């Protein structure tokens, strides 16, 4: 009998709780005063500390605008914008977005055209950085924080087998072959799981064009990858920016590129001081890295455009850029921002800096997400299923042509 009373109590409490919830949360959440800016960023814990303690308070004090900075990964921003734009709610004013996912946001029409605001861009900006937010001649994003992957390697293991980090494709193949021969499984990995950043690096290093995909360079790159593939770790097909850290820190792979935020996690947090980094290797034509990092954009339909632009201008100042360099080790888009990163992070920063000098952004075309899929499918057919490179590339030409034609029509 006691049991039943207990249960009845539970049900009673449940009913009460639900009623109070209905009362408490029934109404829509009210939007606060217009002087609050909602800004999304994808940062790590340490970076958030710098943002919240050093960067934002100064702006709030200076301008009287409250900044509500929200953690959001680049991949999730689109979902949020999709919902809030479709619902005409404008929950977000400014996004600090991964430069390689911007094409889609522009294609979807979520971003404000900032072409008449380009005067915000400081004159000391590196030329390539002025171009990263331009699509079809219109500026949608302004420069903020360039970034590039660096190639981490496990010094202990490399030393053990008398290896040096590769500087060209031949050496890379040798390293991959040696490690596979010594250890029985592939110990070199790349990220070829949906992300085309590194695939495009291979294509461009051989002189290929990711928007053409039928030139000699693309053929060379894919033929090389076909040869390299058997010696790579199986993790190549499932690497993401977060799993890569685990692969490296747990000695599952001995060589793999990742974004420099990994340094703090692998070396700082994990204490793996023997994992070092280089700026990568050259292809048969040249050495190319894919430019990443974040750019700033204003969401279309925001009621706080003036405040948003003010905030962007603030983030682009020399003083903020210098602060971000010093505290977060972020390279700047401004040529006049100099500073030295000291301590144990210094060598990693130097690798990043060197890689940045040869970095090119992914093509700024709005149909890039579709090309992304094509490149993935081509990689799948040639390097995983082992089909003939030239035939596959031929097969994909009509699809590429259709994507381009539809994109032109949509303009």
């Amino acid at each position, binding site marked *: 009998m006691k049991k039943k009373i207990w*249960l009845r109590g539970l049900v009673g409490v449940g009913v009460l709780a*639900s009623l109070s919830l209905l009362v408490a949360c029934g109404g829509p959440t009210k939007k606060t005063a217009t002087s609050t800016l909602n800004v999304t960023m994808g940062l*790590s814990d340490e970076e958030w500390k710098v943002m919240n303690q050093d960067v934002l308070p100064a702006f709030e004090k200076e301008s009287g605008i409250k900044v509500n900075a929200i*953690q959001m990964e680049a991949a999730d921003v689109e979902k949020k914008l999709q*919902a809030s734009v*479709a*619902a005409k709610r404008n929950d977000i004013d400014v996004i600090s977005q991964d430069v390689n996912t911007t094409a889609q946001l522009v294609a979807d029409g979520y971003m404000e055209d900032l072409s008449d605001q380009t005067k915000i861009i400081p004159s000391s900006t590196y030329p390539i950085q002025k171009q990263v937010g331009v699509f079809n001649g219109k500026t949608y994003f302004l420069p903020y924080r360039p970034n590039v992957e660096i190639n981490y390697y496990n010094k202990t293991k490399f030393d053990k087998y008398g290896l040096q980090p590769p500087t060209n494709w031949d050496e890379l193949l040798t390293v991959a072959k040696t490690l596979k021969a010594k250890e029985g499984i592939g110990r070199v990995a790349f990220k070829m799981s949906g992300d085309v950043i590194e695939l495009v690096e291979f294509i461009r290093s051989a002189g290929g064009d990711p928007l053409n995909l039928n030139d000699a360079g693309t053929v060379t790159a894919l033929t090389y990858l076909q040869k390299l593939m058997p010696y790579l770790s199986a993790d190549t097909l499932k690497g993401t920016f977060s799993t890569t850290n685990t692969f490296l820190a747990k*000695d599952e792979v001995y060589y793999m590129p990742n974004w420099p935020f990994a340094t703090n996690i692998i070396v700082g947090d*994990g204490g793996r001081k023997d994992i070092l980094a280089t700026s990568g290797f050259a292809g048969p034509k040249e050495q190319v890295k894919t430019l990443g990092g974040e750019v700033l954009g204003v969401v279309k339909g925001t009621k706080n455009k003036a405040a948003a632009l003010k905030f962007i201008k603030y983030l682009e100042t020399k003083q903020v850029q210098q602060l971000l360099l010093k505290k977060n080790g972020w390279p700047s888009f401004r040529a006049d921002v100099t500073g030295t990163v000291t301590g144990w992070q210094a060598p990693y920063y130097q690798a990043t800096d060197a890689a940045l000098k040869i970095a090119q952004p992914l093509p700024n075309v709005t149909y890039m997400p579709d090309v992304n899929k094509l490149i993935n499918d081509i990689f799948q057919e040639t390097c995983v299923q082992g089909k003939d490179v030239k035939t596959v590339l031929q097969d994909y030409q009509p699809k590429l042509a259709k994507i381009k034609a539809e994109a032109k029509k949509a303009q």
Partner: protein
Amino acid sequence: MTTRKLHFGRIILITVISTLMVMPVYLLFKISISSPSEVLTQHPTFLIHHFDFSHWRDVFQSGNIWAPLEKSLIVATGTMALATVIVAPASYAISRLSRKVRFGYIAALFFTKMFPTVGIALPIAITFTRWGLVDSDFGLVMAHLIEEIPFMAWILLSTFSAIPKALEEAALVDGANRMQALRYVVFPVAAQGIAVAAMYVWLNSWNEFTFALYLSLTTKTLPLEVYYYVQRGGFFETAAYSTLLAVPVILITFVLQRYLKSEYLSGAVK
């Protein structure tokens, strides 16, 4: 002789089963209190060599845990309560309708469960955003109800079907009206089944990820917090947060063990 041998075999079987079920949780906890050198190696250790609670201390000191914890608790409890209020009466009523209607309803419930969540998460997210339900606990409760109502109905329909109609009819003959019959005859019999279903719903809501991701902007539930550390954080923060997410749930299953009699699910198949 054979019985003893069997007995021995059974003990081994039981030991193996229990170990396999518990081992993963143990490893998770172990990693959350390990020093880096024990985990970040090709040869991870199985035993706890020393207790390093610094990762746990970091988690609590950072203060990032409380708001998500609160939100998760409110949403899970709210979902449980609302689901019970909506589903229990409906399931009762359906169980009293004709066989054809009942079967149709069950088939419809089954049908709605077949679609991938990503397929309906977006249209739902747009509607809810329009209604200003982003970041509100109530909005997330409503989203969770989408998954939980069919689930709970699936269990409760059978619980109620197992209660003989005669019981109710007897009460009516004795002069009770329908509400009284419901209140004093049907619900007491079904109460434990309802409690079990409610607990399941609470657990599901506590764990839910996709809708939470779509419908949260500035607030987070615990699974979202874990997701953040999986993507951005160190190895140990991830383990510590994951353990934190699992602990209440393990405690609840332990506490509710006594009430979790398998007969309540049996109704589902009779």
